[in-house]
């Protein structure tokens, strides 16, 4: 997604947080399997850590229901891996589900006209080389979306409304097309996009949370069961673990904002703003939900696409959201421990140690520091890996060569010296904290202590 900016410079994409997320999913898969095995054993079998009187209480039923809400992060994890692993299956499913036909199948009478489908095909070939444009035969829907039909088979699915826009206002339609080219240029079509199980799982998250996370809490409060007070802390801990969903959401939002920035770099920010207005004026529901940033945020970023603030925010987004997640874990866990009868000071110490152990891990933050330092050098190669969108420049090879020399790293990602220092310093400080020895508060805490056969026997 290395775009030649309207002012002539080479613009480098922000770090690929979505791909980094998938890499962490692969890393966490074994520990996730172990964690779920423990949860199933504790909550759903007779070999669990809870006594028969606790299992028989209504509060325990609420705890079980809340645990189901924790399936979502795991489901997102599995969906992300499946999306990347099985693009052919996804392409086949997407084509059937969204009734996609090739652009040429429309049989337009003046296909050769620049404002017709022939012109669209030519522009798509120039801004997203190798991508095939498909048309969705649903009456209503988002204008354009990307998906993968294979490891190297890239598709852009456009709606009938987009085809009409292409004739009515080609500049806005081109901006939307460039947004999708931005996704393709970063390889995000393999993870997100049309028919992606990953985005589907993220989109389903609010409903699952309300049904299995919030509803049991309301039920517990309404019943006034004597055993309920015993389960409140556990339920709060369950909810704190579920907050991990904010990480994939932030990664998806970054991908969208980076694609907007790519489009703005090629066709100018005005065209992107107009295209966003066109979408907003459609009056239809924005079904992106968690998978797309709010319209106002996108417009705010589009207005500042030429400055250094948005690139800095996109470069900082990964570490920042992990730290925010750590803060949320600390808050929830402290509340849970206080509900369980711990004093505030002890609860806070245990929560901080938990966040230190689970979120501020040394391998993860080492990788983030490495990425922050090396990204200016890696970005051109990353773009080449995905057959970088030429975006109307016609200068892929030469530009990549120059960028690879490190020159583009200084000039191309839009970061000033202070912003670059912040991008490197933030994960470096977090890594330094991660390297500090654990206080051992979690191991001493009877509630938070890692569960195992011996721990279960103790309880």
């Amino acid at each position, binding site marked *: 997604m290395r775009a030649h900016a309207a002012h002539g410079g080479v613009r480098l994409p922000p770090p690929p947080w979505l791909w980094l997320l998938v890499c962490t999913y692969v890393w966490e898969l074994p520990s996730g399997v172990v964690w779920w095995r423990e949860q199933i054993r504790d909550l759903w079998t007779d070999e669990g850590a809870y006594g028969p009187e606790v299992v028989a209480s209504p509060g325990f039923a609420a705890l079980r229901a809340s645990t189901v809400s924790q399936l979502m992060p795991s489901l997102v994890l599995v969906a992300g891996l499946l999306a990347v692993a099985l693009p052919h299956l996804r392409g086949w499913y997407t084509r059937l589900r969204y*009734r996609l036909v090739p652009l040429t199948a429309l049989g337009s*009478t003046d296909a050769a006209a620049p404002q017709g489908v022939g012109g669209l095909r030519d522009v798509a070939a120039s801004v997203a080389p190798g991508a095939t444009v498909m048309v969705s035969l649903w009456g209503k829907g988002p204008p354009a979306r990307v998906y993968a039909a294979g490891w190297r088979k890239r598709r852009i699915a456009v709606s*009938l409304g987009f085809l009409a826009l292409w004739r009515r206002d080609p500049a806005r339609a081109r901006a939307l097309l460039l947004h999708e080219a931005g996704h393709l240029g970063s390889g995000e079509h393999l993870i997100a996009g049309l028919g992606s199980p990953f985005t589907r799982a993220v989109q389903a998250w609010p409903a699952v949370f309300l049904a299995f996370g919030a509803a049991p809490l309301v039920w517990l409060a309404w019943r006034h069961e004597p055993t309920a007070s015993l389960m409140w802390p556990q339920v709060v801990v369950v909810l704190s673990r579920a907050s991990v969903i904010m990480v994939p959401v932030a990664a998806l939002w970054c991908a969208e904002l980076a694609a907007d920035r790519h489009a703005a770099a090629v066709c100018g920010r005005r065209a992107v703003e107009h295209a966003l207005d066109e979408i907003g004026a459609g009056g239809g529901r924005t079904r992106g939900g968690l998978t797309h940033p709010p319209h106002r945020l996108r417009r705010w970023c589009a207005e500042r696409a030429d400055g250094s603030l948005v690139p800095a925010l996109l470069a900082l987004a990964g570490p920042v959201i992990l730290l925010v997640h750590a803060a949320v874990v600390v808050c929830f866990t402290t509340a849970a421990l206080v509900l369980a009868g711990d004093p505030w000071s002890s609860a806070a110490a245990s929560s901080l140690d938990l966040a230190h152990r689970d979120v501020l891990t040394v391998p993860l933050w080492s990788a983030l520091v490495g990425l922050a330092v090396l990204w200016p050098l890696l970005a051109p190669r990353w773009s080449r890996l995905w057959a970088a969108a030429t975006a109307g420049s016609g200068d892929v090879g030469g530009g990549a060569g120059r960028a690879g020399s490190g020159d583009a790293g200084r000039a191309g990602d839009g970061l000033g010296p202070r912003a670059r220092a912040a991008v490197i310093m933030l994960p470096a400080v977090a890594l330094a904290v991660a390297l500090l020895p654990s206080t051992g508060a979690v191991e001493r805490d009877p509630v938070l202590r890692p569960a195992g056969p011996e721990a279960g026997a103790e309880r």
Partner: protein
Amino acid sequence: MSNGPDASARLEAWATAIASASAPHETDFAVHTALTYARGGRGRRALVRRAPSVTAGSGGELVTTVLPALWDALAASCELLKTALGSPVVANGVSTATLLLAVHRRRDGASPAEGTGGSAPAEPATGGGELLVLARAVAEVSRRLQAHGMDPAAADQAAASAVAALHAGRDEGAGAFLGLLAGEGRDASGERSAGTPRTGLRRLAARVPGLRRSARARGRSR
């Protein structure tokens, strides 16, 4: 679209003509959507509905397209339109502007023909009764377009343009086109619209609703 190449050619010609009149920006997909609509089934249903659970892309939606809703409105108003177009009292050329004016006057409670001799585009050969028939058809098509979420003014414009185009070519198979769009031939003959034979599985699936109805009827008779 049940009668082979002639039917397809008629659909294509009329789809292009109506798209040029009612939605000039949508001519690229006029033929394909008309053929898909005429075939019926899931393709037709999808054309007039929202895509399922779309999660990614540029977010949001564009302004709704006109043609899929227009095919649906024309098909649903098929009988009324055929009556209006086949009426012997309806005379020569009727413009979109005249039809729009007639529709507005009809809504205001005035006679559609009043004032047509004034500042409005002159339609010397059409009288009040004749316009009333067409205005009723336009209003019906517009109502159905609005049911698809279209703005009333845009719906009136699209409906009037389409009816004017149909009226202009009423001797060239406009009624037959409407019948094809509504799937009359397909329903009457019971043939599959695409013209290709069904597979055994599809034939069985198509019979399921009928079997269900039969079972319910048997249950009630007991």
